[in-house]
C-alpha cells in the first residue's frame, strides 16, 4: 500500500526541480567535489545517470521514484527474512518490529520523493548487520566496504556503518574481521580528510535549529550562539537520538510536550510518545539483561544488537550536530526495530512464565504497545498519501510564484513546466477519510 502510494505520488516542485536543475546543468563528475556542506555524490550521480540516459520524462521520474520505493521494499523484506519467525511468539514480535520500523519517524521522514539519500542507506545498514553476524566468507570484506561506501555516497549518515563494523568486530561478531574493521577505519579517515580539506565553505548553521519549544533561523542561531555553538551542536545531536527513542523532540523542538503542557495534545501525540517511551523502556530492560549475560556467556547476537543500537544512535547524533531532523535518525531505525523484536519477544516469554496477575498486566501493556505501533504504521501510510496530495496542491497553487521567483533560471523553469503535467493531471492519492477520531489516532491532520 505504501509503495503503491509512493508510486502514485507526484514528484514535488520544491527540492525536486532544483535537484534536477543541478543535474541538468552540471556534469556528473562535478558531484564528486566536496565543496559544499552536503556531499552526496552517489545520490546525485544516480539521479544524473537516470536524468541523462532515461528516454522520456515519464521514464526518468518513474526510475527516480523507484530509487525511493525499491530500497524501502528491500528494507522491509530483508528485515522480515532476517527475523525469520519460527514460533507464534516470534511471529508476534516480528509483526511489532515491522510496525516499529514502518511507524518510526526516522523512516517516515525518509519517504519523501526524490530525497532517497537515507532510505538507500537503511537497507545497506541492515545488510551490514546481517553480514557481520554470519560465518565469515571471503567476499564479506569487499561487500562490507562496498555497502559502506554506497551508504556514505548517498548521505553522510552512511558513516554510521563504520563504528558499527568496528564494534561488531570488537564484540567478536563472526562476520566482522579485523581486516574489515581496519579497512573501514581507513575509509573513515580518508573521508574526514577529504571533507575537512573543503570545510572553509561550511556555514556555522546550515538550517533552522530547534531549541526547546521553538525554532530559530540560522542567522539568529549565529547571532545568539556564534561564539560558542557547541552547546547547540550537542543539543541537536541529542535531539536526533531522543527522537528515535521517544518520538520527541521533532526537529529539535519538543512539540508533543509543548502540546501536552498547553493542554492541546491530540490523541496521536499521546500514542507516539507513549508507545516510544514504553518500547524504549522495554528495550532498556531487555538490553540490560543481555548485557549482564555477556560477562558469563560472551557476546550473543542479542547483546550485540543492543550495543549496536546504542552505537548507531550515538553516530546518528554526532552526524546531525548541525541541526536535528527526524530523517537524520534513519540509520539507527533498523537497529531500533531489531532491538524491539528481541525485547518484545523476551517480554512475551517472561510474561508467559509469570503468575496470572503479572501476566495479565504484561499482556495488557504489550497489547497496548503493539496497538500503538500498529497505529503509527498505518499513520505512515496515510502520511505518505497526505504528502502525495500536498505535492499536487503545490503544483496547482505555486506555479505563478515560482515563475516569478525563478524567472532568471531558465533550466529550472523549463524543467518545472515540463513536469507540471505529472503534477496535476492524474489524481494524487489522498488520505483515507476515516472518521475524525480515527484520523486523530493515525495523526493525519485535517486537509
Amino acid at each position, binding site marked *: 500500500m505504501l509503495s503503491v502510494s509512493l508510486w502514485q505520488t507526484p514528484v514535488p516542485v520544491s527540492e525536486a526541480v532544483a535537484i534536477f536543475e543541478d543535474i541538468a546543468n552540471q556534469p556528473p563528475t562535478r558531484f564528486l567535489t566536496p565543496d559544499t556542506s552536503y556531499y552526496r555524490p552517489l545520490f546525485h550521480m544516480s539521479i544524473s545517470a537516470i536524468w541523462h540516459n532515461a528516454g522520456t520524462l515519464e521514464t526518468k521520474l518513474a526510475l527516480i521514484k523507484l530509487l525511493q520505493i525499491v530500497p524501502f521494499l528491500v528494507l522491509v523484506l530483508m528485515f522480515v527474512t532476517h527475523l525469520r519467525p519460527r514460533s507464534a*511468539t516470534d511471529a508476534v514480535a516480528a509483526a511489532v518490529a515491522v510496525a516499529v520500523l514502518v511507524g518510526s519517524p526516522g523512516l517516515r521522514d525518509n519517504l519523501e520523493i526524490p530525497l532517497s539519500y537515507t532510505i538507500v542507506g537503511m537497507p545497506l545498514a541492515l545488510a551490514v548487520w546481517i553480514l557481520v553476524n554470519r560465518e565469515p566468507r571471503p567476499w564479506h570484506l569487499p561487500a562490507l566496504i562496498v555497502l559502506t561506501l554506497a551508504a556514505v555516497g548517498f548521505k553522510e549518515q552512511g558513516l554510521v556503518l563504520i563504528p558499527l563494523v568496528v564494534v561488531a568486530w570488537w564484540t567478536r561478531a563472526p562476520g566482522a574481521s579485523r581486516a574489515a574493521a581496519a579497512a573501514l577505519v581507513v575509509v573513515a579517515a580518508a573521508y574526514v580528510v577529504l571533507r575537512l580539506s573543503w570545510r572553509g565553505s561550511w556555514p556555522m548553521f546550515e538550517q533552522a535549529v530547534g531549541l526547546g519549544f521553538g525554532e530559530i533561523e540560522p542567522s539568529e542561531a549565529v547571532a545568539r550562539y556564534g561564539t560558542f555553538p557547541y552547546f547547540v551542536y550537542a543539543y541537536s545531536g541529542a535531539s536526533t537520538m531522543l527522537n528515535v527513542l521517544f518520538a520527541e523532540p521533532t526537529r529539535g523542538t519538543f512539540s508533543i510536550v509543548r502540546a501536552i503542557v498547553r493542554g492541546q495534545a491530540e490523541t496521536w501525540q499521546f500514542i507516539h510518545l507513549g508507545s516510544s517511551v514504553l518500547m524504549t523502556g522495554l528495550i532498556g530492560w531487555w538490553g540490560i539483561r543481555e548485557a549482564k549475560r555477556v560477562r558469563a556467556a560472551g557476546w550473543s547476537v542479542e547483546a550485540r544488537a543492543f550495543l549496536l543500537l546504542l552505537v548507531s544512535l550515538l553516530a546518528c547524533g554526532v552526524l546531525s550536530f548541525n541541526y536535528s531532523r527526524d530523517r537524520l535518525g534513519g540509520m539507527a531505525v533498523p537497529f531500533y526495530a531489531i532491538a524491539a523484536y528481541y525485547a518484545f519477544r523476551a517480554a512475551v516469554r517472561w510474561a*508467559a512464565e509469570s503468575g496470572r496477575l503479572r501476566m495479565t498486566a504484561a499482556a495488557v501493556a504489550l*497489547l497496548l504497545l503493539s496497538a500503538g505501533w500498529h497505529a503509527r504504521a498505518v499513520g505512515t501510510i496515510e502520511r505518505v498519501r497526505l504528502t502525495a496530495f500536498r505535492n499536487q496542491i503545490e503544483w496547482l497553487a505555486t506555479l505563478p510564484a515560482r515563475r516569478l521567483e525563478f524567472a532568471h533560471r531558465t533550466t529550472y523553469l523549463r524543467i518545472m513546466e515540463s513536469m507540471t503535467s505529472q503534477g496535476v493531471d492524474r489524481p494524487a492519492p489522498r488520505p483515507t477519510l476515516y472518521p475524525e477520531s480515527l484520523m486523530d489516532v493515525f495523526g493525519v491532520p485535517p486537509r
Partner: protein
Amino acid sequence: MTAGGVITGVVSAFRRTRGPAKAGHYYEPAPDSRRGLAAWLAIPTLAVALGLCAIEAWRAIRPRSALFQPPFVYSLADAIAVGELPQAYAFIRAGQDPNEPIWVRHPVFTGRRWVRVSPLLWAVATRNGQAVDMLIAFGARLERRENSDAVCLAQRVGDQGIERALRLNGAPTAAGDCPASTKDDPVLTHLLNGFN
C-alpha cells in the same frame, strides 16, 4: 493464524495459566501460555491487516466512496467555494475557460442574487488564494476586463496575501480606482456594474 485461533489461544492462555507463585510452591509455566499470549498479542496485527485489506478492497470496488473522495462538486464555482483545488483544476483541464464568467450566488458576497463573475473574482471573493494561483497558472488573464477588479476585491475582502499575489502577477494597480462601496453592499455586486 485465524481469528478463531486467536480467540481459542487467548482463552486457553488465561485459563491454563496457574495462579501467582507462592512461597514454597513452584509452578511450571503452562505450555500453552506463551502461544495463548502470542495469540492475544496478535490482535492488533490481525485487526490492522484485516482492516487495511477490507478498506483497500472497498477502494478497488468503490473508488468514489466517501471514504476515499471528498463530495463531488458540480461546477467550477462550487469547487472554488469549497476549496477543492484538484476538482477545480479538473474543470479547467476538461476545457472550461478560466476567463469565462461563471454563475455564482452567495448570501454575503452577492446578496443571494445570481451573478456572473469570472472564476478569478469568485476565488478572490471566497478568499481562496490557492485557487487564485491555480487560475493564474492555468490561463486566467489579469489584464482582461472580467478580471480587472480583482485587486479592488482583494482589498475589499481584506486579503493582503491575495492582493500581493495579484499585483506580483501583473494585475492592474487600482489602489485609487476602486469603486466606493457602502458597508451593506455585497462584496461582489458593487464591482459588477455593467458586467451582468
